């Protein structure tokens, strides 16, 4: 079966890739399967300088999901370049997720990342506070998104994916803004702001009080966001949120996601991405339908 998918200016061998921050820098999963078989590898969010992250506890489980407040801990772009060397021989696309604490930092990281030969796609995480503008999240403000994506677009030639935050009142406005500013594809979506309390100690289970919720419980929320974004933009949409098995992945493809990212499920079963490839093959042959026919085949009347 042909599982390849076209995402505008790049074609992936299949629609399955990890979500940033749940797959390390890639090699950690080499023990579970051949990394070259994946549609792409998406690396942990990178910033200009190494970042320590938030104080522990950083994670807790909630029914059907988890909350994390890792605080974007990462090794910084220079150490990342070293790690990239180990991915040199892989026969799959490498998507680098990145962020900045300020507007200028976003631009510097983007410029530097795009100069690395092995980086195929830049995925910008806009769910970060703008330190210079009172900590408002870049991804919730249309003006900031327009300026930021527009400027990144000017300095890089490689494909640029924009990963949207779902913590906004109308995600389609943000999607349209990102498209106009030059995004090649959208990833919908990041985690949902949430909290949990330990009743015995009456303290938040996460030191940072709140964090981002992920896992199967958020799937219906992200699915609806993907559905709406697909209708409002003409660039490809990559679905992300709560995928744990083939049926949840199929739902995203049916509503029109051209590819999907799998996050938390990598912790539940580190072999999940390889299983999904097999299961999609099985599904398509059983149903006698091609992947292209399946994508966006939602029937609403």
């Amino acid at each position, binding site marked *: 079966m042909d599982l390849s998918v076209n995402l505008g200016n790049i074609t992936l061998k299949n629609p399955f890739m990890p979500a940033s*921050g*749940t*797959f*390390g820098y890639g090699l*950690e*999963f080499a*023990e*579970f399967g051949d990394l070259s078989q994946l549609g792409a590898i998406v690396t942990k969010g990178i910033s200009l300088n190494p970042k*320590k*992250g938030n*104080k*522990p*506890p*950083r*994670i*807790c*489980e909630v*029914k*059907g*999901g*988890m909350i*994390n407040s*890792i605080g974007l*801990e990462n090794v910084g772009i220079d150490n990342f370049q070293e790690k990239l060397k180990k991915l040199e021989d892989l026969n799959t696309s490498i998507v680098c997720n990145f962020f900045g604490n300020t507007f200028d930092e976003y631009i510097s990281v983007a410029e530097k990342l795009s100069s690395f030969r092995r980086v195929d796609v830049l995925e910008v995480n806009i769910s970060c506070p703008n330190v210079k503008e009172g900590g408002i999240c870049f991804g919730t403000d249309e003006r900031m998104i327009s300026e930021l994506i527009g400027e990144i677009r000017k300095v890089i030639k490689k494909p640029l994916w924009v990963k949207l935050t779902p913590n906004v009142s109308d995600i389609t406005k943000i999607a349209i803004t990102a498209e106009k500013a030059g995004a090649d594809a959208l990833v919908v979506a990041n985690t949902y702001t949430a909290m949990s309390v330990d009743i015995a100690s009456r303290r938040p289970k996460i030191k940072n009080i709140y964090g981002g919720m992920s*896992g*199967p419980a958020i799937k219906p929320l992200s699915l609806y966001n993907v559905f709406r974004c697909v209708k409002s933009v003409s660039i490809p949409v990559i679905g992300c949120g709560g995928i*744990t098995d083939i049926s949840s992945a199929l739902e995203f493809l049916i509503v029109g996601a051209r590819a999907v990212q799998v996050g*938390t499920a*990598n*912790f*539940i*079963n*580190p*072999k999940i991405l390889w299983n999904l490839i097999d299961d999609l093959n099985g599904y398509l042959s059983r149903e006698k339908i091609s992947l292209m026919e399946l994508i966006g085949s939602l029937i609403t009347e």
Partner: protein
Amino acid sequence: MKRINGKIIARKILAKDIFLISIELEEEFGNFGPGNFIMLGINDFENILPRPFSIYHAENKNIRLIIKTVGSVTGKLLKCSLPYEVSVLGPLGNSFPLIKGNNLIISGGIGIVPLFDLVNRINVECFFAGFRTKEEIFLVENINKISKIYLSTDDGSFGHKGFITDYLEDYLIKNRDRDFNIFACGPHPFLKKLWDIGKRLGVSSIFASFETYMACGFGVCLGCTVETPKGFVKVCKDGPVFNLNDIFGE
């Protein structure tokens, strides 16, 4: 490190809230070191994340864990009807160093599990095992066969009355002219107390296994981090066994 499906085929109550489970795996588990752990997953929408447990025993296609009921998953493992499908990811983490010298082991409660196998692999002069009360005592009869053992309960319902760390301290004071390695596992305040005693009496090394919440167990989620004077460390990958000096030292 492998991920293997299996099912719990037997369960035995060992003490109050503490039980042993025997898991039949689809593949061989392989070798492991004392202190290594596994991530145990259950197929349950409510508890999506696997949980870390020390390896009590593993041989061929069988692995055994000793579990204390403290919350949701450990509660389900106690009550589920058998056979019960699970997944096992491991072996994970580092293990206790197998070194020569005057070795002492000290455990608090369920912390005895990762230390149990150490008695078979290094020379141990004495095993100090502390429990809260008589009903919570388990496993010690198996250790007694191999090594000298000190037993205490906080309430004095069995063995010596009081905290096991106090008995270890007495032992160290009586043997002040000798140098010891200490191997430990127990709750955080217990380890802190041990560090204070070791520092006061000049013990050369204390190796201890730590517990944190974990999501992945193999270094990718960055969720199990603890803060140390030298920066953040990952309990699942840099540990779970640490030299206490690296955690509490300056």
